[in-house]
């Protein structure tokens, strides 16, 4: 499992850890029931503080991505696919919202934006 930490980034370390694990869960690289490294082990491997990894795991648990069984460890939770989709849709909506307001300010038409979307989809 790759987790890449940037020390110069403005994003807090615990959030970098959290987001990367979350992405791996969403993309199914980490599967439901899989055990995550222990807080202390991950802290050592990433050379970050125990509290930082603890914060990351706690947030993942709050959002329902992982489950901690006391004395055993932290596991990837059974995925609530609806919930994850909902969250991704919200994220997309936010980004489109920004795009639309930029388009409005600069007088770019809806059609031009739609064309752009089509091109982006075709590229993939």
């Amino acid at each position: 499992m790759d987790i890449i930490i940037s020390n110069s980034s403005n994003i807090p370390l615990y959030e970098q850890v959290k987001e990367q694990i979350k992405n791996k869960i969403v993309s199914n690289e980490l599967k439901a029931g899989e055990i995550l490294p222990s807080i202390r082990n991950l802290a050592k491997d990433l050379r970050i503080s125990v509290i930082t990894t603890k914060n990351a795991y706690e947030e993942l648990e709050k959002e329902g991505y992982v489950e901690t069984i006391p004395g055993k460890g932290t596991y990837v939770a059974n995925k609530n696919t609806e919930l994850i989709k909902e969250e991704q849709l919200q994220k997309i909506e936010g980004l489109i919202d920004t795009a639309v307001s930029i388009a409005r300010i600069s007088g770019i038409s809806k059609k031009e934006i739609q064309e752009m979307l089509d091109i982006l989809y075709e590229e993939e």
Partner: protein
Amino acid sequence: MENILEIKNLSKKYNEFELKNVNLKVPKGMIMGLIGENGAGKTTTIKAILNLINIDNGEINIFGLDIKKYEKKIKEDIGVVLDDSFFSEYLNPTDINKIMKKIYKNWDERLYFRYLEDFKLPKNKISKEYSSGMKMKLKIAVALSHNPKLLILDEPTSGLDPVARSEILDIFQDFIQNGENSIFVSSHITSDLEHIADYITFINNGKIALSKTRDELLEKYGIVKCSKSEFEKIDKNDYVKFKINRYEYDILVEDKVGFKRKYDFKIIDKPTLDDIMLIYIKGEK
């Protein structure tokens, strides 16, 4: 959470220097870094913890016991690395083993030789011929070999190159893997502590200026950079301290997100411990 080390209202007055009402707690399984300028009181605090000086006031508990009453018992479970050299440089690690066996009831010879191997320290070479990094690693191996639950170190990384420093940080993180052991370490090389310390305590002029988790300090605090006229718009309650530079004002704020919401300034940097220390020491309010 259970505290391994707790200092309550510690005071000690010397002619030129005074420790004033120092309070701090190190929870079990955690690393606390003590930072501050030279002469700020780091070593005096460590000496007080180890009962090496007579304190004027306050209480120091380790493993829940008062160090003044239970010094002998407590010290069986602490590993200590102080700044001044501790053995004759004409002894080799094998000689040191013979001495330590007599000092500590729970000295673990096998563990000691395993550390020597892990740290790549030659057993039969006198330590005079060691590099400074090797000398420090030897001190740490000695401090670890009676299975302590608390490691107290004064400036373990000063004067070492980045590779040796990084190896020592690895040793620290290994030591706390079991969740039971804790570390109290002073350093003025703050970058060493910036990542691996769970708690940071900043001592300034004999007083505790800040004592927080690493995440609170480095992810919540911010340094606002702005012009004089912008600075004048800021409410005094919204910053910790400020420092006037040639071309800008540097302002230390406790909650950069909240600050940004209220003032919408362009530049709010993530601080380093050095930034925080510098504005705190040189800045004004």
